[in-house]
């Protein structure tokens, strides 16, 4: 193993350790310090309201493409009316939370890292500390709390829009019987699927916000450092979402039981 590889591995584990400490300090701060609700509300607006177009487009087109593909396969075995049920289960437990989180990671995660990174390199984070404000309390806690509240709502919205757009496609363009379509969807979609999806979305939100904040506050000086931190935040949170999705699926399946 070359020394460069050893250094890269060491840096990776150091980063992981520091990220874990940041998470622990953030949780400690949320539990002990009175949050600044004005900041939390602003961050909820920034994360939630400003992500509407991204979430709606992601939900609608994922629902429609899933519906079309499912219909093409189901039609061969005369199971057209199971199309919406398949869309609903897939959107509720997997595609809704994962795709919404990936889109939020690209939009919100990148913005958070760029903002905090710019603040760090222009000494604004040091200025905060000199003005007796703890960067975790002032910068990370409001973003984490906002993400905690908003991410499940965005995912629920994405799931609903995905199912609605699939329904419209199935009934009005593919000519599937709407009564059986709707009945089968309600019959085969279990509340546990949706609940698992929302739990996942909340955890993915925490992965996004903690990765983004850590990368922003630890970025190297200069425009290049901020750019690199922003790229890394999106890449690491996206990978984190995909990997944790597998483990969460297995764990939640065991905890919540098979539908």
């Amino acid at each position, binding site marked *: 193993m070359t020394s460069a590889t050893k250094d890269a591995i060491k840096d990776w584990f150091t980063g992981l350790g520091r990220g874990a400490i940041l998470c622990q300090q953030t949780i400690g701060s949320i539990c002990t310090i009175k949050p600044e609700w004005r900041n939390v509300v602003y961050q909820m607006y920034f994360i939630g309201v400003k992500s509407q177009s991204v979430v709606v487009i992601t939900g609608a087109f994922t629902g429609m493409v899933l519906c079309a593909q499912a219909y093409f396969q189901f039609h061969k075995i005369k199971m057209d009316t199971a199309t919406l049920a398949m869309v609903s289960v897939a959107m509720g437990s997997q595609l809704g939370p994962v795709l919404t989180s990936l889109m939020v990671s690209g939009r919100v995660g990148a913005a958070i890292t760029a903002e905090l990174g*710019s603040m760090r390199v*222009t000494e604004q984070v*040091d200025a905060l500390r*000199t*003005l*007796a*404000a*703890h960067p975790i309390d002032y910068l990370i806690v409001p973003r984490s709390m906002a993400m905690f509240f908003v991410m499940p709502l965005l995912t629920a919205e994405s799931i609903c829009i995905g199912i609605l757009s699939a329904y419209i496609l199935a009934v009005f363009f593919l000519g599937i019987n709407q009564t059986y379509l709707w009945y089968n969807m309600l019959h085969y979609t279990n509340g546990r699927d949706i609940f698992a999806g929302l739990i996942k979305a909340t955890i993915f939100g925490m992965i996004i916000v903690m990765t983004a904040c850590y990368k922003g506050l630890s970025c190297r000086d200069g425009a290049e450092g901020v750019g690199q931190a922003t790229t890394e935040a999106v890449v690491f949170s996206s990978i984190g979402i995909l990997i944790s999705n597998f483990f969460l699926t297995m764990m939640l399946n065991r905890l919540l039981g098979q539908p």
Partner: protein
Amino acid sequence: MIEVRNIKKRFGNHEVLKGVTFSIEKGEAITIIGTSGGGKSVLLKHLIGLIAPDSGEVLVAGENIDRMNERQLLKVRRRFGMLFQGAALFDSMTVAENVGFVLDREQKMTPAEIAKRVEEVLTLVNLNGTQKKKPSELSGGMRKRVGLARAIAYRPEILLYDEPTTGLDPIASDMIDQLIIRVVEETKVTSIAVTHDMRSARRIGKRILMLHQGKIYTDQKPDDLFKSEDPIIHRFVNGIADLKETSL
């Protein structure tokens, strides 16, 4: 008020501070001079706990701040106001929000009282009327003056200035110097400025400390320092480069 005992600091292989020792009494105005990259700003950041030394101690009002965690340091930092080299104004906020930041967070004053205090300090730095502007709409000199207003708005006991006149034209530099002198005279705060602007150093400080090769090389009154015949001090205060370093 502040006591620095043999602090050392290393970044990678480069030892920036090699055992710095000095003390500052309450109400004193001192200037720390030294070459660019010589560790002046690093030293200043040690005084407020933004950087922890590798060894040595920094005592503020008798309390050793090196042993404090970030939350304990917040209470100590409430005694300080700091003007950063680039002003470090929060660019997402207006001038008024920047200046009233601490007062707003402390929630001890009503919004009207905060607005009045903001107006007072902005008047002191000749910037009343800019309350609604964003930092991006201000010139470099104006940003520094807003930074100064922010540092004094909550009436700290100690003011730190990191290169207060760097990057400013001579008139803006003079204005900043006058403001610092006025603030020190009117509020009787302890004042510590780091600079390599000799005119500023002479005017702001009642005592000048020179940081050279990671140590305090000299600690003198401005007039004595400028008359010094020590070759290192003489070359620095008169801006004379070492010919060996400039030869091609």
